[in-house]
């Protein structure tokens, strides 16, 4: 009725009064209340989550109203936790709660978009009667045409097209590239499968089927801690957040819990109610400091020193002054402390060499299988050297002895930690040292035994424990007068020394070290360190991490519930990995896939190596053998590739398909023949590794797919180098790049190549910086518009993404998008490709017998004449894969035959999948025709979800049984109790849509799902005696590979941040005004998950609404900066412009720019470069580290996302200066030919 007429009854509305007239009762119209009811009224509610790289894995209710997603709310129906533990709920944060904004936001990509100039070119060629592949070839053949669209990347110019047209062009580009350059010139980048597994698998499956490369991300993001593979042989395994509650002592450093682990932070707070002491080590007053009992603000980048100082106290008081029984037993059984190391005479010094092996003894100590790979301890029971079970030599070639039972040759032993009471001699051993002004080495006295080896050499041997105690500077009365007091700052690694370096008071380091150890002793290991990106993103991240791991192992914490390390960055545990990998990499059709280490890939292909100012020689230890002296960092990588350590993409300077053709012409009939041919050609130099001449046009990457990622706007360390060399766009690189000429292994081209990519395709639901620089942008379904799977390391549940509404506008799910591309690709390849044989160059893989390729960690380089190139031993393995290109689509949509023929495997365990394949055939239905006839269908997204879950031990009890049985064979220990109660269980997609399900314990991981303990890393290593997948089978304090020793990382040592030298040239426009030089720190943000959310209206409203970075009050004052002034951060890498936040929270000498504010919101031009103001990574550049390239050596072997170079970025410094408001230039001018032609900043000519 009428609101107005209702008002006419105003004087009649009071029916009665009460409380002496202070209250009235009315019968007025109440329709307006429906407004508030309707706000929360909805048509349906669907369970989904956010496929974003945050480790949250939060289940959400998505509310749909009138066919549109209206809002979302946290789900609260997780299955219960264990008794006495707080609930997981509520999970979710302000970012996830704002996601529905994106669906209908201006950022949403609604239709297939394409660079207008490219579309014109393509249409013209097609009109002239060329078929799609010919049309693409014609555009690429004409450098003017190519430049016309390549040169305007990042400058807008998109037009709307149709799916048919753009997919045809993409497929044509792929076909052309395979034909002309080779399939390994096509690359795909997508991160973190766990956040939306099926979407990841879509692209990687298509690319793997056509032979293209898929790039790693965990190492590239520098979230992978290389220390984890080094020490544990494990990529990363961590406790679930609930286990924080079980801890009794937590040190937090580099992980801002409430800000970046928002849904989990409550466990940290609740743990305090449980009596836990919390120590924070943030350099700034970070949000998590508020719930610490003690704040030890460490100078950024010096965490290793602080932890070494604490380790000094723990080691001295609990291992040397007294022998804590729990610590001692733990060290004996689960660490390499008792392992014997040979001391080498080098010049006039005695230095630690390699581990003693069974093969060093007469008759190999009775070990016929892999004696070079079996390390040795001294048994204090029999007073003899023995070969304990569990080293990597037991893992391959025999069964039943790969375990951590304290046995040797079936006899119980007690490994001796130190020979100090039974020594032959005391000798001086030299340790490398890296602290400035303290000399480059430390000489320490060590008790040793003298031993004559089978070779006849007499050597000194000692235990890792004795080495480690000496290196920590603990005085054992051996006469070297080391620190007698913690206050002696002249002896490295004492608390006082650490205080000098870190700025934390000596007393705090001493007390925390002691309390941490004392708590662990009393609770049997319930002391924990929560750590993360902020200490891992440094060049010497492995030292920061190993400093922590040392402390944890000294105190017996790793593998104990409530203890150990808790590293949470970017890995997001892909729980059903074993079921997923075959689908994701097309292993059901071809093996092996092409996988690449992305850091190396981008370092070379974006030509960052040409600008390298870090001299590898400066990083070498004083004790280095240094056979590679004079090598540049890039040279090390090239050597590592040809020795079969790390992957390469593209492999060779020739199309791998052509190589097979030529090999066959030369008489090769099988894989061995092709391999032999290739080895000969590599030796003769007729064929070369691509990276030896990476700037040659035949070695350029040609097509790039980016999906589920924001490569350009977020993760591209060296953003401006990407723009310049990879994309050929307007860029802000402020240096000529001449340093690379010093390379010995990489050919130098005077003129650097630009615009290497022919085609870049971005698949996204929002138009971000990556889309802006792409040639084609495809609209994908959001996380509320598709079926997918999601898991995390933070909780043990698997839950779905599901379809609340159909994909809006013309968007499609990733699985469907790549299916469409595969279909078109198949059609076009009929005529242009047919079936071809392709040779894949594979590095020696971790968790396979290939990891036993290069014994003793000695570097043997065939190109230097150290040995012959033998594939799989001293060179990569060359595998021939037959690619039936026209059947790519048929393969994509069906679960292929190799799953039955070869079965499945993970982490070196094999099992058959026959039964699962049959079940999937009836669950999903089968393909009716073609080469996939009768095979289970993968056509629909939900089919794929179910296939993953059916094949994974985590979601299928039967597979758990099969995989654990394989493990039992290896260890000789019955592990069946771990999955017993859930043997019959099978979790399907529809189950998890109903409610998240707790996963089943699987040998893929080192923790267990149980009623008794929370999930914790390395739990099965300690409690099931399954060895760590390292050389010794134990956690390693010591790494004996030649390069590790060369770079002084045999033992953990403190290494200060590296001077990258990019801030030394102050640009002319800044020279005469006040400026600051600040360390560039880029932590994770409160108002975004990387670049996602930070551009959403809702999140922008909560802070400055555009780019900003933080500077301390004092620093700001010194150059007259006021809060919210415009500032520019600039160095030789480029420049970024933002508003400054002036805050007492920040320590002096540091600028904090949150990751990842990209350039699509409110970023003006840079006054220095004259180009768009840039992003956080405009001022960074990747620097690679040789020790991360090691391969073919037990845990130091390559696996995808497991080991490799990492994209560190925190050692960087920038010049910061104020920009007056009037000087802000938004660059909103038309694109003139002159502007288009000038891609570099003024004065940069290369």
């Amino acid at each position, binding site marked *: *009725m*009428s*609101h*107005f007429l209702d008002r006419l009854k*105003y004087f009649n509305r009071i*029916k009665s*009064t*009460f*409380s002496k*007239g*202070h*209250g*009235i*009762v*009315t*019968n*007025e*119209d*109440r*329709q*307006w209340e429906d407004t508030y009811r309707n706000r929360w009224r909805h048509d349906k509610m669907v369970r989904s989550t956010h496929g974003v790289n945050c480790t949250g894995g939060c289940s959400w209710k998505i509310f749909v109203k009138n066919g549109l997603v209206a809002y979302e709310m946290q789900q609260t129906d997780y299955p219960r936790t264990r008794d006495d533990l707080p609930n997981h709920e509520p999970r979710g944060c302000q970012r996830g709660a704002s996601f529905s904004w994106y669906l209908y936001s201006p950022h949403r990509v609604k239709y297939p978009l394409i660079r207008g100039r490219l579309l014109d070119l393509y249409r013209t060629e097609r009109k002239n009667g060329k078929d799609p592949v010919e049309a693409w070839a014609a555009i690429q053949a004409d450098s003017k045409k190519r430049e016309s669209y390549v040169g305007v990347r990042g400058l807008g110019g998109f037009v709307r097209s149709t799916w048919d047209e753009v997919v045809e062009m993409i497929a044509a580009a792929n076909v052309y590239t395979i034909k002309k350059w080779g399939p390994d010139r096509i690359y795909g980048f997508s991160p973190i499968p766990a956040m939306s597994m099926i979407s990841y698998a879509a692209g990687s499956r298509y690319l793997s089927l056509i032979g293209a490369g898929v790039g790693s991300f965990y190492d590239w993001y520098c979230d992978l801690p290389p220390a984890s593979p080094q020490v544990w042989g494990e990529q990363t395994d961590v406790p679930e957040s609930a286990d924080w509650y079980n801890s009794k002592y937590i040190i937090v450093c580099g992980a801002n819990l409430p800000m970046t682990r928002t849904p989990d932070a409550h466990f940290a707070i609740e743990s305090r109610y449980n009596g836990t002491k919390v120590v924070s080590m943030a350099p700034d007053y970070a949000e998590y400091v508020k719930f610490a009992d003690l704040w030890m603000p460490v100078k950024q980048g010096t965490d290793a020193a602080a932890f070494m100082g604490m380790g000094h106290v723990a080691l001295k008081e609990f291992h040397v002054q007294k022998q804590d029984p729990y610590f001692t037993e733990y060290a004996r059984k689960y660490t390499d402390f008792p392992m014997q190391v040979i001391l080498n005479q080098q010049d006039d010094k005695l230095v630690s060499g390699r581990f003693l092996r069974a093969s060093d003894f007469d008759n190999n100590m009775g070990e016929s299988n892999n004696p070079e790979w079996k390390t040795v301890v001294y048994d204090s029971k029999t007073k003899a050297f023995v070969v304990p079970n569990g080293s990597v030599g037991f893992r391959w070639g025999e069964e039943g002895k790969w375990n951590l039972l304290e046995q040797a040759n079936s006899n119980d032993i007690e490994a001796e930690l130190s020979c100090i009471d039974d020594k032959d001699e005391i000798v001086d051993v030299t340790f490398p040292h890296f602290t400035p002004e303290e000399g480059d080495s430390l000489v320490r006295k060590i008790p040793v035994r003298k031993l004559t080896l089978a070779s006849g050499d007499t050597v000194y041997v000692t235990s890792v424990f004795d080495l480690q105690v000496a290196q920590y500077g603990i005085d054992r009365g051996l006469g070297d007068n080391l620190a007698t007091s913690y206050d002696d700052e002249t002896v490295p690694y004492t608390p006082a020394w650490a205080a000098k370096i870190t700025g934390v008071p000596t007393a705090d380091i001493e007390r925390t070290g002691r309390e941490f150890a004392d708590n662990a002793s009393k609770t049997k290991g319930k002391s924990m360190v929560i750590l993360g990106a902020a200490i891992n993103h440094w060049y010497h991240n492995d030292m920061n991490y190993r400093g922590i791991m040392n402390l944890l192992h000294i105190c017996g914490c790793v593998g104990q519930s409530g203890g150990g390390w808790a590293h949470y960055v970017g890995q997001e545990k892909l729980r059903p990995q074993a079921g997923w990998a075959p689908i994701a990499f097309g292993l059901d059709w071809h093996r092996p896939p092409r996988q690449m280490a992305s850091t190396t890939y981008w370092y070379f292909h974006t030509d960052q190596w040409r600008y390298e100012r870090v001299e590898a020689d400066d990083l070498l230890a004083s004790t280095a053998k240094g056979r590679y002296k004079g090598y540049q960092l890039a040279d090390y990588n090239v050597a590592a590739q040809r020795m079969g350590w790390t992957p390469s993409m593209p492999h060779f300077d020739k199309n791998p398909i052509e190589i097979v053709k030529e090999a066959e012409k030369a008489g090769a009939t099988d894989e061995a023949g092709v391999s032999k041919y290739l080895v000969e050609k590599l030796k003769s130099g007729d064929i070369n590794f691509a990276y030896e001449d990476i700037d040659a046009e035949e070695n350029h990457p040609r097509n790039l797919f980016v999906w589920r990622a924001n490569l350009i706007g977020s993760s591209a360390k060296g953003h401006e180098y990407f723009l310049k060399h990879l994309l050929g766009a307007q860029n802000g690189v402020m240096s000529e790049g001449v340093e690379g000429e010093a390379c010995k292994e990489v050919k130098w081209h005077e003129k650097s190549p630009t615009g290497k990519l022919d085609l870049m395709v971005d698949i996204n639901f929002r138009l971000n910086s990556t889309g802006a620089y792409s040639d084609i942008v495809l609209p994908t379904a959001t996380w509320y518009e598709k079926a997918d799977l999601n898991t995390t390391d933070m909780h043990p549940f698997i839950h779905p993404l599901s379809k609340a509404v159909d994909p809006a506008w013309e968007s499609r799910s990733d699985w469907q998008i790549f299916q469409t591309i595969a279909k078109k690709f198949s059609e076009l390849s009929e005529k242009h490709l047919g079936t071809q044989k392709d040779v894949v160059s594979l590095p020696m893989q971790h968790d396979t017998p290939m990891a036993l390729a290069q014994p003793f960690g000695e570097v043997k380089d065939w190109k230097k004449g150290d040995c012959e190139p033998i594939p799989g031993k001293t060179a990569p393995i060359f595998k021939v894969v037959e690619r039936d290109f026209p059947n790519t689509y048929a393969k994509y949509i069906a679960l292929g035959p190799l799953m039955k023929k070869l079965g499945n495997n993970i982490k070196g365990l094999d099992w058959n999948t026959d039964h699962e394949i049959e079940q999937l055939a009836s669950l999903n239905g089968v393909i009716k025709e073609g080469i996939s006839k009768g095979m289970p269908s993968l056509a629909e997204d939900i089919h794929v979800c179910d296939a993953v879950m059916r094949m994974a031990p985590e979601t299928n009890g039967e597979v758990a049984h099969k995989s654990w049985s394989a493990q039992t064979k290896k260890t000789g220990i019955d592990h069946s109790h771990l999955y017993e109660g859930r043997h019959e269980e099978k979790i399907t997609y529809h189950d998890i849509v109903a409610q998240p399900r707790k996963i089943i314990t699987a040998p893929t991981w080192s923790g267990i799902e149980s009623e008794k303990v929370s999930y914790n890393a390395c739990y099965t290593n300690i409690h099931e005696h399954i060895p760590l997948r390292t050389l010794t089978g134990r956690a390693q304090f010591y790494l004996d590979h030649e390069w590790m020793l060369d770079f002084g990382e045999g033992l953990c040592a403190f290494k200060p941040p590296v001077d990258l030298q990019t801030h030394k040239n102050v640009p002319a426009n800044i020279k005469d005004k006040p400026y600051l030089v600040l360390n560039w720190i880029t932590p994770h943000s409160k108002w975004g998950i990387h670049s996602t959310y930070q551009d959403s209206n809702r999140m922008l409203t909560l802070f400055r609404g555009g780019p900003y970075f933080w500077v301390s009050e004092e620093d700001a004052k010194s150059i007259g900066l006021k809060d919210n002034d415009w500032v520019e951060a600039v160095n030789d890498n480029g420049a970024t412009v933002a508003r400054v936040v002036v805050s007492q929270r920040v320590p002096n000498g540091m600028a904090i720019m949150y990751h990842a504010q990209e350039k699509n919101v409110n970023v003006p031009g840079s006054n220095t470069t004259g180009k768009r103001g840039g992003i956080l990574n405009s001022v960074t550049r990747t620097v690679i580290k040789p020790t991360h390239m090691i391969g073919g050596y037990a845990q130091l072997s390559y696996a995808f996302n497991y080991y490799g170079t990492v994209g560190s970025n925190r050692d960087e410094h920038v010049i910061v200066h104020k920009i007056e408001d009037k000087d802000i230039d938004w660059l909103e001018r038309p694109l003139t030919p002159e502007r288009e032609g000038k891609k570099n900043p003024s004065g940069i000519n290369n």
Partner: protein
Amino acid sequence: MTLHNFIFGAYPYLAGTIFILGSWIRFDREQYTWKADSSQLLSNKNMRMASNLFHVGILGIFFGHMFGMLLPHAWWQMIATDVQHQWIAIYAGGVFGIMCLIGAIMLFWRRISNPRVKAVSRTRDTFIIGWLLVTVTLGLSTIFVSSGHAAHGDVSSMIALTEWVKSVATLSVNPNLIQDVSLIFKIHIFFGMTVFLVFPFTRLVHVWSIPLSYITRPYQIVRTKHVRMN
């Protein structure tokens, strides 16, 4: 019908009808648009001065017109002579008019120059403050004429205008009553009537909802559950 007859004979009823009916329809159909649309959250600079001057001024003018023109002539004669009446109108109108003028100028300037306010301004927002500004300027301009009249004791224009207003109000409109008043009055009247015409289409509707009931509102209001809506 001459233009004069239309504007002063028909137009008052046209404007009045649209004013009443328009407000009613908007109130019934567009409840969410029934608001003042304040932009003070976006920019509060000088608003204490501008908003108060404008609002006090315009309310003063409104009630001044009401009392001055609608009270029966006889009642006025009990308090003041016609000449006095005219001087009161001139002074009161002048004071409130200048307040309103200054406020309106500030608001108008703010609306077209402040980037944040400008960004949220619709055409009608800028239009209405502009229109009011012109109207009040015209109103103030009449003072030059009427003070001349008053100085000579000539109240005929004032009487004519009030008689005409009453003729409108009593539905017996007679345009001839103001056939001979100065043109400036006529233009001002036209602008004033137009304010009523556009009233329902602008933010002015918030005038209807002045929350007077708050003055006597009891502490607690219980709204019964069973509302019988016809």
